[in-house]
């Protein structure tokens, strides 16, 4: 890696003592000796293991659940169903006033995705929990399911989630988050070329080497210590407090040393049910996702569809951009309404475009609920935007890098969401890329600056 100090030197104070120094990491000696303590490295006597019975169907009504055989299985200590969870219907963003509550800790009457948690089994060993789980009989009435976002948005599509009442998240702005800037239709009318293209992704897993999990220990004083690899301590504690209807003062969360997160450990899934298990049995409980659960049960990055329509001039200026983004939330909200909204704030990308129209939808389908991941709301949008930029450049016969210089945002430019640009540095990154990759661009672009339009 090279630090190119020549850029922005006037804005930077060098000569600090600790900042800017490549100091060795204080946690690395623990990593290389295997001494770093992750949550699962704590072992407690009499610990119970929690295994989940999951839905084999994408969408089904639960007619009945029979746990009688499983309860008799040797080693089984407790079996939990929806009725055991004090506040079973929840949503995590309720903490920042984004509702409605739309998800069940344990399925109650219905399952909405294949893999949804239905019954929790607590047993002396993992093996006993697995054997007992296999003896639980759930009688399902399979319902029609919808997997495709466009199908889900059509009238008459199977309703995924009754708590929403329709297969999209209802923002205060309506069925989507909107950004309106300038007059996009006038921009298209004025443009030399119009290009409308559609981009698609499928779900992506965080795949941290350490799977999601926690170990909960009753402290004997009506408090519970939860050793967890959550990415957000109080967010998880406070949501657990709501779900369990237990004062936050009874909960003690310990974590902060995590074997990779990438956004995959900000849902509140394992902790509440494990705490409930510890409370009802009075024993330590561990609930750790298997790798298969991490891959297919934990929230992935959402699949997205992005439709971009651009109006571009022969001289390279983009004069209008309309973006319609669809985020496949799966069956429940989790962080997806936030992510779709973040997309609306991000479009039309780091470019100054006078006429912009953005709609971003959060769509419900019968698949594993998606949630946050590294680059949340932006990663797939950037793929779409930057492939579109390449297509536009080729459409007008211009070098793709030069085309970006023409449209790059600079300090003071008004963004579509009506904030003036501050601290821009796209131009300088592209100038350095031109040099590093031996991709020459016209001298006028190498002379540009993010500071002002004229410079």
């Amino acid at each position, binding site marked *: 890696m090279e630090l190119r100090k020549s850029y922005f030197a006037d804005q930077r104070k060098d000569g600090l003592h600790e900042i800017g120094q490549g100091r060795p990491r204080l946690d690395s000696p623990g990593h290389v000796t295997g001494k770093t303590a992750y949550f699962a490295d704590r072992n407690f006597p009499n610990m119970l293991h929690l295994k989940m019975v999951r839905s084999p169907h994408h969408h089904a009504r639960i007619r009945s659940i029979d746990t009688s055989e499983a309860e008799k299985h040797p080693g089984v200590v407790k079996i939990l169903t929806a009725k055991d969870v004090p506040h079973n219907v929840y949503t995590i963003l309720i903490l920042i006033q984004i509702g409605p509550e739309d998800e069940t800790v344990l399925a109650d009457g219905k399952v909405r995705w294949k893999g949804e948690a239905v019954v929790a089994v607590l047993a002396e060993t993992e093996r006993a929990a697995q054997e007992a789980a296999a003896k639980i009989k759930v009688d399902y009435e399979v319902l029609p399911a919808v997997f495709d976002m466009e199908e889900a948005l059509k009238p008459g599509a199977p309703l995924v989630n009754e708590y929403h009442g329709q297969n999209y998240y209802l923002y205060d702005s309506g069925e989507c988050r909107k950004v309106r800037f300038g007059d996009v239709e006038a921009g298209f009318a004025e443009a030399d070329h119009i290009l409308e293209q*559609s981009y698609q*992704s499928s779900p992506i897993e965080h795949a941290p080497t350490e799977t999601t999990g926690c170990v909960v220990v009753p402290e004997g004083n009506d408090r519970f210590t939860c050793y967890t690899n959550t990415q957000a301590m109080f967010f998880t504690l406070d949501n657990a407090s709501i779900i369990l209807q237990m004062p936050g003062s009874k909960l003690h*969360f310990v974590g902060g040393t995590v074997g990779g997160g990438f956004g995959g450990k900000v849902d509140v899934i394992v902790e509440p049910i494990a705490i409930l298990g510890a409370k009802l049995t009075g024993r330590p409980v561990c609930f750790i996702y298997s790798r298969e659960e991490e891959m297919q049960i934990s929230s992935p990055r959402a699949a997205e569809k992005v439709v971009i329509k651009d109006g571009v001039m022969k001289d390279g200026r983009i004069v209008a951009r309309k973006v319609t983004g669809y985020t496949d939330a799966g069956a429940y909200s989790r962080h997806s309404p936030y992510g779709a909204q973040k997309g609306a704030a991000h479009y039309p990308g780091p470019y100054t475009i006078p006429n912009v129209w953005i709609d971003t939808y959060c769509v419900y389908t019968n698949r594993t609920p998606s949630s946050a991941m590294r680059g949340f709301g932006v990663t797939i949008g950037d793929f779409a935007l930057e492939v579109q930029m390449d297509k536009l450049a080729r459409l007008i016969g211009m070098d*793709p890098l030069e085309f970006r210089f023409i449209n790059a945002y600079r300090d003071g430019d008004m963004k579509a969401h009506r904030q003036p640009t501050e601290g821009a*540095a796209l131009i300088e990154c592209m100038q*350095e890329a031109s040099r590093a990759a031996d991709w020459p661009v016209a001298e006028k672009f190498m002379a540009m600056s993010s500071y002002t339009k004229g410079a």
Partner: protein
Amino acid sequence: MAIRRGRGVAAINYPTGMNLGGDPTQALVHSTPTGNFMVTLSSVDLGQGLKQIMAQICAETIGVPTDRVIIDTADTDTGPHCMGTFASRGTHRAGNAVIQAAKEARQVMLEVAAEELEVNASDLETDGEGNILVKGAPQKSISIFDVALSAHFKRGRSISGRGMFLIPRSYPEKETGAMKPSTCYAHACTVAEVEVDDETGEVTVLTVKNIFEIGRALNPRMVEQQLVGGSWMGISHALYETTEPYYPNRDHGGTDFNQYLMPGPGDLAETEIIVLERPSADGPYGAKGPGEMCANPQIPAVANAVFDAVGVRIDTLPITPERILRALKAQSAN
């Protein structure tokens, strides 16, 4: 058979911190009797190195070497609230909270030192090595070790501070979407060079040249770690990864690391990283959040390079050999 070569470029920006703000983080800093500094947080280290960076930020602000700072984090019985580690917010939000707490502790430290040296606190500075000096008269000095002892056992002062950082929440205007999503943005431009086997659709990423503007590289070695790993993940997203290979069909989802595809150690592109620093106005020592955005520009850069190589557009991620081969067959059929 032909191996065809192409290159592509992409340029991106990325917001630092939770979209629309409203995401507070607090920190507490106090001195031990011998002048070591404890930073108490509830922020989570996912492996990116938050603990180390908070130690360096505290050390810089107090004026001691980093090895005199201890990080106590993520115990909710002791650490004050942090919204969490996500949205490229850890360094920016927690770092600002640590600076505020450390500044308050530093002020008490300087006041105690001023009493010991019989000067005004405003005339004092730190040398970054654990000493407090009188500006312009460095021979007149006292060690932070002695200041802490004095504060504890002689003067009854608590060398401590509280920090809180909050970007007030912005609410989007319903009809126009007017809003303030973030206060600072990181930037990147990537040029990728690929080879595509036009009989099998297999892609080899030969080189990626990544230029990242990240505000300030607080610890350049750790910045490098993030950026190299992120660049790998970007290529991985471009060409390999999905839990639903036949989306929206739900069948054949991978359940292990054999089926969930990511580039192995034999698939690595030659990776060049160049970092620019335009300090952010409100970042700790000018820092922004580079951890997420570093994995974004490779995806479209690789996609554009594939087109440059073989003349087909794959607008669906991941860009698998199958998708390329199907497109090549459609291309030759036309």
